[in-house]
């Protein structure tokens, strides 16, 4: 079996709790629940509000509302945004692809760059170049990604005019899209790389003291081939865990970078929803993000058991 029963149960409980939170928050927060569920931009006559209350099931008891809520989720019915005048689910699906187009290349590039450089930095002697790389990655590690976005936007787009200043339209060619995505991906992948770098470096520093490394050396293997043939696999295990755990954190980072670059993704959507107090969109985004984060953890678990057979044996 790919996943132990215990783990699977935890995933289900996590989903259940987060979805329930999403039900509870708008209904228990201060303010009129009808406003909390429809957004503050929504103005209607008393009669319409009564009608909507019945349509939304607010006249029923909380337990009935809760059952309806789950029914809606399974039928992908996440409510209606009166601000955008569209179904929430279709807005999110429209915007989601740009967030993913920013996030996935960044995670991939960040993982490759971070583990490779981190492994080399942990393996090699601590010379000046090595120290400088570590300082640079630490500096990136310490900065909020959106602030890097502001600086890059100012230098590359505003000062030098190398890259476009604002987001893009859906109709652009592939090259167009690439040009718009270049800076955001650059920022997010260095940010992701900085986190992987620090972990990989520490991990190699521990692994290289182990006996199998001495044995490989005694066998006559040269420096870098010990690193890449023996140490790398063991040392990268914590990084794989980190990438899964970091998915949510990087996703949040990507949301903020999107806002800086006015990209048409979920981050900008959340920002617009916040400004217009469009609660259905906010809740919908939260649900979809939750599903994405849990799915990422799930895949990491499966990947982990493929790379480290010891995990599968234990389960």
């Amino acid at each position, binding site marked *: 079996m790919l996943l132990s029963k*215990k*783990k699977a149960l*935890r*995933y289900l*409980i*996590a989903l259940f*709790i*987060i979805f329930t*939170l*999403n039900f509870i*928050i*708008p209904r228990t*927060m*201060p*303010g009129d629940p009808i406003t*909390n569920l429809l957004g503050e931009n929504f103005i209607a006559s008393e009669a319409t509000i009564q009608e909507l209350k019945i349509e939304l099931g607010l006249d029923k008891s909380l337990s009935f509302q809760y059952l309806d809520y789950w029914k809606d989720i399974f039928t992908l019915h996440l409510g209606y945004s009166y601000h955008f005048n569209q179904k929430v689910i279709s807005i999110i699906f429209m915007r989601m692809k740009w967030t993913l187009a920013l996030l996935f290349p960044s995670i991939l590039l960040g993982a490759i760059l971070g583990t490779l450089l981190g492994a080399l930095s942990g393996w090699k002697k601590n010379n000046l170049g090595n120290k400088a790389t570590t*300082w640079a990655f*630490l*500096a990136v*590690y*310490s*900065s*909020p990604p*959106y*602030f890097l976005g*502001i*600086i890059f*936007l*100012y230098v590359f787009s*505003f000062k030098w005019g190398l890259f476009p200043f604002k987001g893009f339209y859906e109709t652009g060619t592939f090259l167009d899209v690439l040009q718009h995505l270049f800076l955001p991906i650059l920022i997010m992948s260095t940010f992701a790389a900085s986190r992987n770098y*620090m972990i990989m470096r*520490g991990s190699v*520093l*521990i692994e290289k*003291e182990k006996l199998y490394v001495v044995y490989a050396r005694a066998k006559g293997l040269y420096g870098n081939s010990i690193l890449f043939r023996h140490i790398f696999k063991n040392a990268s295990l914590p990084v794989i865990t980190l990438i899964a*755990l970091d998915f*949510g*954190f990087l*996703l*949040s*980072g990507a*949301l*903020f970078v999107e*806002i800086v670059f006015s990209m048409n993704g979920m981050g900008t959507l*959340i*920002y617009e929803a*916040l*400004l217009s*107090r469009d*609660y259905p969109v*906010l*809740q919908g*985004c*939260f649900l979809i*993000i*939750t599903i994405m*984060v*849990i799915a990422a*953890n799930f895949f990491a678990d499966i990947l982990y058991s493929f790379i480290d057979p010891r995990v599968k044996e234990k389960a």
Partner: protein
Amino acid sequence: MLNRFGLVLVVLFVLIAILADIISPHDPWDRFEPYEKPNRNHILGTNDIGNDILSELIHGSRASLIVGIGAAIIATLLGLLVGLFSGYFKGALDEIFMGITDIFLMIPRIPLIIMLAAFLKSSIWLIMLALGLLWWTSTARVVRSRTLQVREMDYVASAKCLGFKNRHIIFSDILPNIFPVVVPKFMLTVATAMISEASLSFLGLGDPSMKSWGLMINFALIKGGLVNEMWWWYLSPGLCIILFVYSIVSLGFSFEERKKVNLR
């Protein structure tokens, strides 16, 4: 060397936050001529409503440090308790605690806080509490695995034989040995909490009644600081965040590396 540099900076920032009232040249809420360039009276100029930016920066350190350190204290205490108990007692308690930890690890934290802050009136105390209650999970895991090692050591066994109570063993025998892993974890948590606070303020969800670095960047951006090339306005709070987080993170990492050398 890196270590000492980090320590000096952290102490400096904490001093600035404590002495903000004495060292800032103006009251951060006083209004002068708006959009002034840096000059002798206002070293970093003034913002859109005429507040002195340097004074804002000095007073802003308070909110940022309170949120960062406060959230990290809450998170570390929670993580310590969960990790210690679940590592020491093992069994059913461990299963339950680690299950809860796994579930908390999967909650998308920043989006959840965005939701909460959108419905509630935002204040730094709310942000601090929410960050602290959501960020304890990785500390709990580290503490647990260290506790599992320490509880098997001979001196713990002898304490048990001497008839000491579990509570005494956990807090006076095991806890001191957990400290070397908790300290760097605490510092990394301060860093993440500060970056999160800055990000939330950037969305306009920060506490409007208190100056903070994140809020300053937010205002500089939406009130035309970027397009008017007033770099001193948005760059200085950003650099403050980076410098403080950098110093505390480098302290944490150097602590971790030195500890490994000592263990060998």
